[in-house]
């Protein structure tokens, strides 16, 4: 029982400290609010539906962006991993594009897509293409050479080789890349909402700040943290479940 409580002891202590601080020293602060007030604000946001609406928007945009970015990244990674020539041709383009911070693309995305989901999805997609591409390319190059010789000996067609040997061989690492992408997608989507897109959790956070409502702002911060934690745990669980299903893939 004590062991189960151990991980929550520190957060509870911190919350209690913040509560005490906000109720004494920072009583008139515009920046801090007691967690109890934040909890009430959170309950209100639950009640009026704004919480679900904003959460749904952010998660939807993050998921779409991640799906799009991962699909593009995985296919490109597969291609570049298989073909040295393709890798050599695109190496410079990738190395120039990759370091661009995804949020630096917001102005361009805004020009192209305007405000709204499409803009946010495109920026998230840009951010998630790269880790997937790089990990897939490396994974494809590290496919057991012996399996490639088996496919040569059997004279598998290039398509069969990709579908029956390469893709299953890299699948476990594709799930790892996807899980890393989930965290990136969430961070980028909230950032886009704070910076530009008048929708979602990031925007709600901004509005709370601008309307000098630190309790609500704190409530959103907690909520974003909680959602992020839940999503990452879910992704980790899915990845492990997948690894178990392919349990015989001893690496």
């Amino acid at each position, binding site marked *: 029982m004590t062991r189960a409580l151990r991980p929550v002891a520190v957060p509870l202590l911190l919350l209690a400290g913040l509560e005490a601080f906000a109720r004494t020293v920072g009583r008139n602060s515009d920046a801090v609010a007691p967690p109890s007030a934040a909890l009430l604000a959170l309950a209100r946001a639950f009640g009026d539906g704004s919480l679900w609406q904003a959460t749904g928007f952010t998660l939807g945009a993050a998921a779409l962006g991640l799906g799009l970015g991962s699909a593009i990244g995985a296919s490109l990674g597969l291609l570049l991993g298989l073909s040295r020539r393709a890798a050599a041709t695109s190496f410079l383009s990738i190395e120039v594009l990759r370091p661009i911070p995804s949020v630096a693309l917001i102005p361009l995305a805004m020009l192209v897509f305007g405000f709204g989901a499409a803009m946010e999805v495109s920026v998230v997609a840009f951010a998630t293409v790269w880790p997937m591409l790089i990990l897939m390319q490396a994974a494809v190059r590290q496919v*057991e050479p*012996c*399996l490639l*010789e*088996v*496919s*040569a*000996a*059997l*004279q*598998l067609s290039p398509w*069969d080789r990709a579908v*029956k*040997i390469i893709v*299953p*061989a890299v*699948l476990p690492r594709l799930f790892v890349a996807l899980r890393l992408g989930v965290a990136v997608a969430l961070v980028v989507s909230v950032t886009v909402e704070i910076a530009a897109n008048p929708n979602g959790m990031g925007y709600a956070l901004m509005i709370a700040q601008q309307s000098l409502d630190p309790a609500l702002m704190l409530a959103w911060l907690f909520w974003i943290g909680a959602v992020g934690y839940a999503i990452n745990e879910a992704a980790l669980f899915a990845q492990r479940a997948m690894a178990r299903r*392919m349990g*015989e*893939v*001893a690496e």
Partner: protein
Amino acid sequence: MSTVATLTAERAAGTPAREDALVFDRTSIRFGACEVLSPTSLSVARGEFVCIIGPSGCGKTTLLRAAAGFIVPSGGALTRRGLAVTGPSRDVAFVFQDYGRALLPWRTVRGNVSLALEAAHVPEAERPARIERVLGTVGLLSHADKFPAQLSGGMQQRVQIARCLAQEPELLMMDEPFGALDAMTRQDLQDELARLVRERGLTVLFVTHDLEEAIYLGDRVIALRANPGPQRASLAKVIDVEIPRPRNQLSTREHPQFLHLRRELYGFLGHGHD
């Protein structure tokens, strides 16, 4: 199927080239500046079981890989049934030493064997029966739905052999296939292999570092020397094994010729460069 004796006689009488499953004609292989196989001439008759031995680094695996079409020779000719070897062919099956790496870990035993049939575009309806049949011949029927990681090393190597048999090849290339197995399993698999090869009339090129295994299995044993250099050929010794078949782990290994050949080869390998 002709017997070993007649095959040997035919070879002596100058059999036409088309009867040979595989012919190395002054074949040499170099990687960069390093000549791994100096010009080697060797004919393998159809249905013949040829074992290749030699110290490590003597090019025996390279020779095998060239015969399978994985490596293109740098010089000389290499023909299979009279046609130049230009790449891998489904008529040639390759059994890798490292069975753990050569099997698809995400497919069951059945699925791994199926891969050979899929590659050969065998209609889906025919596959299950053929898989069952081939698994039956290697004694894996009861393990058909297990994954390779759930099987012992010997069984995994059986799966690989089953996959190669499903390919219905003429030639079987085996690169130290039993090298990583314990002695009992190795002997079982040797006997099974000898039986399968007889039943199917396969031509086998079998690389091993175990000279007793070479004598036990082979119709002929080819010894290669390490670092042949420009003056000497890689091919150091060719020995015909005329011990009758079917061979037996006990009596064959006590056969006078077996002992005699073992001494001869052991002396040769023991002295290294003669």
